[in-house]
């Protein structure tokens, strides 16, 4: 395809995607209400997507216990009496504390479900149904409801009651043995890919169901199995059925790209390079000053180049070249000669990356309760209805009054009665559950919603 860089095109796009006026733009999912009974990561990221794009997400937690990630931590880190990781998983949500085991709680949940468009749960398979909070019950009171159950193995089949976490799902899908050098240690995919990827597929399913409902008025049930989500990304099944053997782990080579790898530069940094096409290969050998390689019949054509021995030979040539160049030199050559090369970034670079700030996927954000912080924002950019973080999390039960009064029309007295009976409740005095120490709860208009001072 013809190469050209049009100044006007890029400045036009800079204008329409300008991140500074995101809050003035409309939201795709405004008016969609989500009842979120889920916890940890897999379920909560389904509703994270919906909340980012404007849905009203009501997260129900057990009083004084709450979502496990509230009190979870990494290297003993907390921030303003909260777990920052929990903050990043649950922005834009309303937090109510309700003990489902108490008489009367189920009725409240069903009232909320009647007024909701989407219901999300990730209990053990069948548990919500046994409680009378499953799709069977909710679809009777609200036939337009889209109900998604997130579980390790799905709601059906002999493994359905088997426990699952991200790591277990990676093991059960066969993915666990695919990362690392051959013959060396095998590694998991980090930062709970086994939750985040299936969770995103769950959000995709809900979005498809909302599109369907827009046409037909019909709700439906969605069975999102974590392990099936991971299996969907693996080429092993097709490879085994065609080639007759399994794909083993290959370290930093992508066996579908030759050459490919992560290479060390002269200034001690790491750069990833992968060549997918003949055109990119020509660009690379130009940069290497090795146009002879493009003449060689071992490398001239993609399928030949990809053969294990040939690919290795090319990897070595790239390795030697990168070792004599700085990171900046390698990246500059990639720009000039048009081949894929990107520096291996780290966490601290991501936080300070001006590109990400300009893009709006990472924002310096001012929260009404937690103040200023740098947070991950919308993962995709929508020009006219962009996703956005509006607030971080709140303590357990913070929105009890706001939601129960506004949506269900309960009075202060009724709410206090429910509190007394333990049907609804609040945070325990633990880090991760309670408000930050500086917060003036008595004068908080949302926490005290509907109460005149």
């Amino acid at each position, binding site marked *: 395809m013809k190469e050209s860089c049009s100044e006007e095109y890029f400045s036009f*796009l800079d204008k329409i995607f300008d991140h500074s006026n995101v809050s003035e733009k409309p939201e795709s999912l405004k008016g969609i209400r989500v009842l979120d009974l889920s916890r940890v990561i897999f379920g909560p990221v389904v509703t994270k997507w919906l909340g980012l794009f404007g849905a009203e997400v009501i997260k129900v937690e057990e009083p004084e216990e709450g979502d496990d990630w509230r009190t979870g931590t990494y290297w003993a880190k907390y921030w303003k009496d909260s777990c920052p990781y929990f903050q990043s998983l649950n922005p834009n949500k309303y937090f109510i504390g309700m003990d489902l085991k108490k008489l009367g709680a189920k009725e409240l949940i069903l009232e909320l479900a009647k007024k909701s468009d989407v219901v999300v749960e990730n209990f053990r398979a069948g548990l919500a149904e*046994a409680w009378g909070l499953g799709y069977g019950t909710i679809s009777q009171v609200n036939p337009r409801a889209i109900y998604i159950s997130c579980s390790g193995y799905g709601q059906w089949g*002999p493994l359905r009651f088997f426990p699952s976490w991200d790591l277990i799902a990676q093991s059960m899908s066969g993915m666990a043995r695919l990362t690392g050098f051959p013959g060396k240690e095998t590694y998991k995919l980090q930062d709970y890919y086994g939750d985040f990827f299936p969770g995103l597929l769950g959000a995709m399913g809900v979005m498809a169901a909302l599109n*369907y409902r827009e046409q037909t008025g019909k709700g439906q049930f969605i069975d999102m199995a974590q392990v*099936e989500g991971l299996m969907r990304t693996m*080429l092993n099944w097709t490879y085994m059925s065609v080639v007759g053997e399994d794909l083993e782990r290959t370290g930093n080579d992508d066996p579908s790209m030759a050459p490919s790898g992560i290479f060390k530069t002269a200034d001690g940094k790491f750069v990833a390079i992968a060549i997918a096409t003949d055109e990119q290969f020509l660009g690379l050998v130009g940069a290497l000053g090795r146009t002879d390689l493009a003449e060689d019949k071992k490398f001239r054509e993609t*399928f030949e180049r990809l053969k294990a021995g040939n690919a290795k030979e090319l990897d070595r040539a790239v390795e030697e070249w990168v070792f004599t160049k700085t990171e900046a030199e390698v990246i500059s050559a990639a720009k000039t000669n048009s081949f894929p090369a990107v520096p291996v970034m780290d966490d601290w670079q991501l936080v300070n990356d001006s590109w990400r700030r*300009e893009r709006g996927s990472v924002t310096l954000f001012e929260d009404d309760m937690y103040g200023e*912080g*740098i947070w991950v924002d919308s993962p995709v950019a929508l020009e006219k209805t962009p996703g956005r973080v509006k607030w971080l999390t709140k303590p357990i039960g913070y929105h009890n009054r706001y939601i129960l009064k506004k949506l269900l029309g309960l009075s202060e007295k009724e709410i206090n009665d429910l509190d007394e009976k333990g049907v609804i409740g609040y945070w325990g005095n633990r880090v991760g559950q309670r408000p930050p120490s500086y917060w003036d709860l008595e004068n908080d208009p949302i926490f005290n919603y509907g109460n005149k001072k």
Partner: protein
Amino acid sequence: MKADSENTQVFSKHLTGKGTLKRLSMFDKLLTEMMGSAEGKPGAIDDITVIEVSQANFAGIISAALLGEFGAEVIKIEPPEGDPARKITPYGKNVDGVGLPFLMESRNKYNVTMDLNSSEGQEDFRKLVNKADVLIDAVKPGSMDALGIGYRQLKQLNPGLVYVAISPYGHYTAKAKEFHNVPDTDLTAQAGSGYPSLTGDPAAEEPYNYPIKAGIWAAWYMSAVLATTGTLTALMHKRKTGEGQMVDIATNDAISAWQGFQLVWGFTMEQPRVRIGNFDWCLFPYGYYKTKDGGYVTVAAAQDADFRGVLKILGRWDLEKDWRFLFDRITDDVENLKKLETEIKKEVAKHTSKELASKSLAYSAKAARSRLRSKGFPIMIELKTPPDVLKEKHWQIRKSFQEMDHPVCGKFMIPASVPKMSESPPRVKWIKCGIGEDNEYIYNKYGLGMGK
């Protein structure tokens, strides 16, 4: 399927009661029906037409496949010589010139050739876009615009068009412009998200101490599903207002912008994470351990109580009292963690994977009956290989894999569509990969090719 001992579950009494059995049996009926064939059911977006233009970019190819699985009519446009993605395949393995990833993701598409560099091709393209709802642009940023068929021009033609751009650094920002010429791959997109810098062991010898990439196309798949979910979100706005828009995905940002933990760590620690081998930064034990039979077992103990359960199962309660490990949330003291890890490795290696799996299940079952629920639920399971997974009865019952029988490519296996949905299930109707295979059908349907 009849309930057998494996799938009978006793639920605790306090929440259930009258009506439970009836509810569960009705739920089972719904599920049985869902596990059957999708045939005859509508797709979620049967009313949507998608055009895919991608060049050696599987994020675009997979994203279009997913929309096709949900029922959209997907027209893949290729140059006469075909998309170079056809040749992206492990070790060059192919069926009749088609690489295996391309085979696996050519789901429910119509393959059409069109020379977008020619004015006739561009005219046909405009005609097609006029009737379409979604365009996926996974070629170099700005190149469609340079041909006069980019977002600026097409939105005039079709204001309802959802224009989805997929590229390494996106189509806006200074960096997007600077790097518009650098193509996309999964490996470089993993690097751009900082994903390999989380994996590996800095103490190993060169080059095994390097950052290590994920062994699947972690960035391409993440980007594809972000693109599809973003498209479906933009379509909701279109259904309400008739308005199209541009959706932009940067593959170099996909993993970090969705998983977010990297930003949380960087912001609160003000430094990058140091790679710590097979440890997790939040949980311990949470990883893979070698067993007596030469296999691996996965040990996952998320909570403090679970960790104590692991010590009990392994018969090493003595470690609980050891001052070096005498605190919860031990992951911040890597040196002592390594000592504890050595002990656990030693114990695990005395057992087979099966022994440990059954011990942990028995322990958890007993713990579940304890009223205080303070004994934890440690999980130990055998690490499955892909061939093990294919044999698993559970996935056969759920039809999680689908065997395709293609007139040219023969029989092969693909993972089925996810998730399972009761009213408008996604599904794979066909796999087609011939270059220009559907020219006649699509050209006739849309009245194209008149200029030739």
